[in-house]
């Protein structure tokens, strides 16, 4: 409805951004498919925001190329790229009403007034802010401001929408709600979303694909499920979800806490002693001291796993062969 479905495939080739001797982005090659919800995930300093700013055109690439549907836009200034963007903190125009904020992109393109009015009404309906058109940003809640920012960024039907930690300012409960709204919005408008976050939960729940970034490089790319079940490196395994690490035959393996089973003493591959446990509602999280693998974290269904074990209890541990994922050295 609102998107520009005929366009929006991005290609990044050998992108580098250097500040003096520091490489913030150190060579990125990535295909972003048309209509995809792609998340750049990484800790602060991993280069994810710099990469987004380069796609937006606010940061000039030191080397490399950016292509939109096969045409280079590396030299195109930000105002000519026609990419929507939701900024960290939203960056709404504080002196303009919600209506004028949303209309801005159309008004600077000198579109006829009736067209602008119709489009603004459509966008406000899309984000369910119909009654708020005459308010100033300061008169809105954080969640409402976030929706105005979305409506403003999508008003001119951009082929690509860039989102820079758009949920960072919201409280936790609202964040989960907005995640669902965003996902739903993405389905409806069909625009390519490039989403930057350091929050693994957001990345897992919303994205078609996630790019894990570290020190300006891509650590691993894949669907949330691929990344969770087949992490390639220790960094990927520990940044997305929790992981135990095992050594065997000179190799390292990652094993998720919920893939380890607790058995009676004497059974299973190895034995251990309960060090501590914490109750998480649906889950019981155990810390278990093992002779071969150090302390392992084990998650057990609280309702299926039988009575909780006290610290000091001796147990056996087991897991399926494919639960231990070999990591690259």
């Amino acid at each position, binding site marked *: 409805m609102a998107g520009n479905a005929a366009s929006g495939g991005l290609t990044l080739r050998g992108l580098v951004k250097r500040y003096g001797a520091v490489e913030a982005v150190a060579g990125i090659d990535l295909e972003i498919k048309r209509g995809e919800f792609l998340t750049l995930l990484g800790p602060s300093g991993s280069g994810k925001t710099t990469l987004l700013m380069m796609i937006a055109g606010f940061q000039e690439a030191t080397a490399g190329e950016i292509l939109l549907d096969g045409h280079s836009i590396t030299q195109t200034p*930000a*105002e000519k790229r026609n990419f929507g963007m939701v900024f960290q903190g939203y960056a709404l125009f504080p002196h303009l009403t919600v209506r004028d904020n949303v209309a*801005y992109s159309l008004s600077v393109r000198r579109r006829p007034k009736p067209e602008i009015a119709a489009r603004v009404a459509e966008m406000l309906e899309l984000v369910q802010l119909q009654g708020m058109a005459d308010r100033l940003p300061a008169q809105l809640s954080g969640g409402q401001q976030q929706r105005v920012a979305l409506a403003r960024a999508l008003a001119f039907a951009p082929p690509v929408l860039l989102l820079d930690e758009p949920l960072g300012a919201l409280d936790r409960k609202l964040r989960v709600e907005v995640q669902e709204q965003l996902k739903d919005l993405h389905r409806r408008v069909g625009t390519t979303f490039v989403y930057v976050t350091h929050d693994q939960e957001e990345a897992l729940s919303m994205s078609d694909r996630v790019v894990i970034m570290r020190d300006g490089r891509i650590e691993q790319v894949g669907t949330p499920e691929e990344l969770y079940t087949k992490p390639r490196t220790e960094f990927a395994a520990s940044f997305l979800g929790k992981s135990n690490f095992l050594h065997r035959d000179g190799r390292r393996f990652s094993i998720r806490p919920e893939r380890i089973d607790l058995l009676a003493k004497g059974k299973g591959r190895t034995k251990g002693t309960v060090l501590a446990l914490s109750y998480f509602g649906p889950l019981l999280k155990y810390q278990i001291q093992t002779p071969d693998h150090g302390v392992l974290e084990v998650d057990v269904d609280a309702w299926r796993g039988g009575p909780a074990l006290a610290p000091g209890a001796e147990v056996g541990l087991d897991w399926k062969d494919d639960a231990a994922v070999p990591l690259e050295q």
Partner: protein
Amino acid sequence: MSRIQSLNPAWLLVAPLLALVAVMFAGPLLNILWLSFTDPEPGIANYVALVEKTSLQKLLWTTLRVCLITTVLSVALGYSIAYAMANVAEASRQRMMLFILISFWISVLVRTFSWIMLLGRNGLLNNGLIEAGLISQPIPFVRNELGVLIGMVHYMIPYAVLPILAAMQGIDGRVLQASRNLGASPAQTFWRVYLPLTKPGIIAGALLVFILSLGFYITPAIMGGGKVLMVAEYISVQILVTLKWGTAAMLAVLMLASVLGLLYVLSRFMKLSAALGGGRT
């Protein structure tokens, strides 16, 4: 729950100052108000003269004109200086601020005489231009309204720069990026976003310059060469030379009322404390 208890002891600390202000400031002010209605004889004759005497009307018009032109020029020049300062590296900004403050700190008398030496009939500029063969007669830069404006604008620019710079530095750079991202050209971003967001600084700077200009005395007296008569100089003449205290008091009351009126009008549009450099909102 006695009233003594509810009295904040901090009041004791400012009490001497309050007493001083009451005696040394409010007292004379009331005296001026009193004089304007009683000297030389009781009644409103001094105020009626405003309507009847064309010389007074001319005086007020000159004052208003010079103040308005000074305000417009100071704010325009101050805006571009502030813009430059807001967009250079921190070290350069501090250097520029130092230059602004140096001119701020130099006595207005020194600055005015410097302008005379630079721009007078036998000043550096006129002599230079004549020797270079560009002009044959000295250009009358001073001892006229142009001179008054040059002197006043030069003096007022820092007062315009400081509040405008504060407003510019308060702008979130992401808002300007958002404007570009939404397709606005640099000129559109300036007119639609940057200028409106700096408006509080412009209003505060303009108000400050206008109010200070209204009471300007030394610069018009010297740079105007007696040909550009403004209210402050006229009041001084009435008190020291012609001894018409009633007229002087009436003009003083009029100026004070205009300034208070301006502040009141402004307070309807914005928070005064913000305009005068108090807390930022």
